[in-house]
């Protein structure tokens, strides 16, 4: 009977796994990138984060907002870790609407590190109107909001292709191998040499896609490095405590077991 049970179990498992396979065959799986922030000790690549911010600022930010981030976050540990002066300069390069002042008027002033990232459009509707009716999603948590996470975002950025024969695209719609449904309203904005990296790295499409994805992964999970560090400590503590409690348990129960 036991053997039978095992066999049934494996049979069912095989059936389920084959269904899964059929399901996933309908769309292209995202490219698997060996990100530095993967794994239990994963950390962000600091230089890549800084380059990624540059790509975001020069390319993405003209359409995509990142409303949950503040400029000060750019200088915090675990992030791009720009210096205090750099953060102040970055913030000051944006015009922030503030107010009302004592006259009841709104006014603009240069940004401060405590300000939230300035959005390119005043509201969702304006953003959609400026982009052919498609609202460019806020990128603060985009990596967490897509199945496949960083791999998916990276894949879409490098996944633009000419549509296969038979696929007709409307005006303002582009073909992308990895996008769900293969149709995307965001044009391919990356081309080799588009930005000039301060650290001299060659700005290939692949490099820029990796850098900006790293930046977005950090933006979605700014606590990642702290979480990993604390997690390792917590696990070590719990495992040691478990061993001690186990030994105590053996000792205490030996009074009973010996009588059995």
């Amino acid at each position: 009977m036991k053997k039978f049970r095992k066999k049934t179990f494996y049979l069912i498992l095989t059936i389920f796994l084959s269904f899964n396979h059929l399901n996933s065959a309908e769309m292209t799986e995202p490219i698997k990138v060996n990100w530095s922030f993967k794994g239990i000790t994963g950390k962000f690549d600091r230089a890549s984060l800084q380059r990624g911010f540059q790509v975001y600022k020069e390319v993405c930010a003209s359409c995509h907002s990142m409303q949950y981030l503040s400029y000060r976050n750019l200088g915090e540990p675990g992030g791009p870790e720009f210096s205090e002066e750099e953060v102040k300069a970055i913030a000051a390069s944006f015009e922030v609407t503030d107010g009302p002042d004592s006259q009841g008027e709104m006014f603009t002033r240069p940004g401060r590190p405590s300000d939230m990232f300035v959005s390119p459009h005043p509201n969702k509707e304006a953003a959609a109107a400026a982009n052919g009716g498609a609202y460019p999603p806020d990128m603060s948590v985009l990596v967490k909001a897509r199945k496949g996470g960083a791999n998916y975002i990276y894949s879409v950025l490098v996944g633009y292709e000419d549509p296969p024969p038979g696929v007709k695209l409307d005006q303002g719609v582009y073909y992308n191998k990895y996008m769900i449904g293969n149709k995307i309203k965001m044009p391919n904005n990356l081309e080799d040499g588009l930005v000039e990296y301060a650290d001299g790295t060659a700005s290939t499409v692949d490099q820029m896609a990796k850098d900006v994805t790293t930046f977005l992964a950090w933006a979605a999970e700014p606590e990642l490095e702290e979480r990993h560090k604390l997690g390792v400590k917590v696990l070590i503590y719990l495992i040691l405590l478990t061993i001690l409690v186990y030994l105590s348990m053996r000792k205490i129960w030996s009074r009973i077991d010996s009588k059995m």
Partner: protein
Amino acid sequence: MSDHEYQPKSKVGKWFNDRLPLLTLGAHLTDYPTPKNLNYWWTFGGILTFCLITQIITGIVLAMHYVAHADLAFGSVEHIMRNVNYGWLIRYIHSNGASMFFLAVYIHIFRSLFYGSYKSPREIIWILGLLIYLLMMAAAFLGYVLPWGQMSFWGATVITNLFSAIPLVGESITTWLWGAYSVDNPTLNRFFSLHYLFPFLILGLVVLHIWALHIPGNNNPVGIDIKKPSKDTVPFHPYITIKDAFALLMFMIIFAGFVFFSPNVLGHSDNYIPANPMVTPAHIVPEWYLLPFYAILRSVPDKLGGVILMFSAIFILFVLPWLDTSKVRSAVFRPIYRQFFWILVIDVLMLGYVGAMPAEGIYLVLARVGTVYYFLHFIVVLPVVGLLEKTDPVPMSISEPVMTGGAETSLARKINEKI
């Protein structure tokens, strides 16, 4: 029981205890005679208590920073994740804690099914446990709505719409639940209020659940009545407390693994997209712990029928003690029931799996087969097997798992293997 004789040593203690016998209660809980053969499946009661308290404490802290408003809820969760000190940790413990809570409760329930813990004289413990489970599902559903992401919004829409299947008054009830003509800000606000209330109701039921447990005492893997206290029992403290602590720590290691290293793997990525009533997600799926019921709901082409069947799947458990006709509690001595138990486990896992898949093609067929079998198990298999099954010989006591005569050594070995 020995706690009748308990007398505090100090004068103050005696004065207090005569007026409110808290010290007697403490002594009772410490000395509580527990079967000495409890295995690790019995540690989940303590683990569940830990889960409830963890959810309450983290939940209270989250509520200090969360804003229950349709325009602000999503942002306030991001505020917790980014700006509140260790807010990410508290929120991830709370969100993964819900999953760990359900993992533990399912093990706890299936342990009861295997060892017949629901049977006389423990029916009230079982029913109180089911009420706790029902409230847990309600609390988890309400809590999942609060971040106001896409799955929050559409999950709430699907579940609340179930009530519209009720004839005549369904639409009115749904509108009343929403506080609006669709899932909207009033819905979110009341869901927050109820989500804060339910854990305390659960806590009250847990007290009753433990109280009811302490009347007959624990069941045990052999499933026989034992004399208390006797050489078959050990005092709850330190024997059970240390064992529970060890099991709890193992559980916490897994818990911490999720919280620190893959905090979002049990959730749905769509819930990081702010709720949008104009865009329906491709697949609306509940959290994993509700999937078997979701599969049952969708296996019926008729909405009202699906709703009735889904609720029946839970309510049938309430009469389980009277559906099971076997005099023997533990499946250790029930060779036929044991097989059906494992088939039920596989059936429920399969229902959970197809609940996550689109309701079409082979998945729909599997959902229907799984649903029919689920009910067959309780309505047909349990009563019939209980009457027809030839059970293995049951020992007289835990310390002497022996009946009479020469078969004693082999039987004792058999029991030791099985436990």
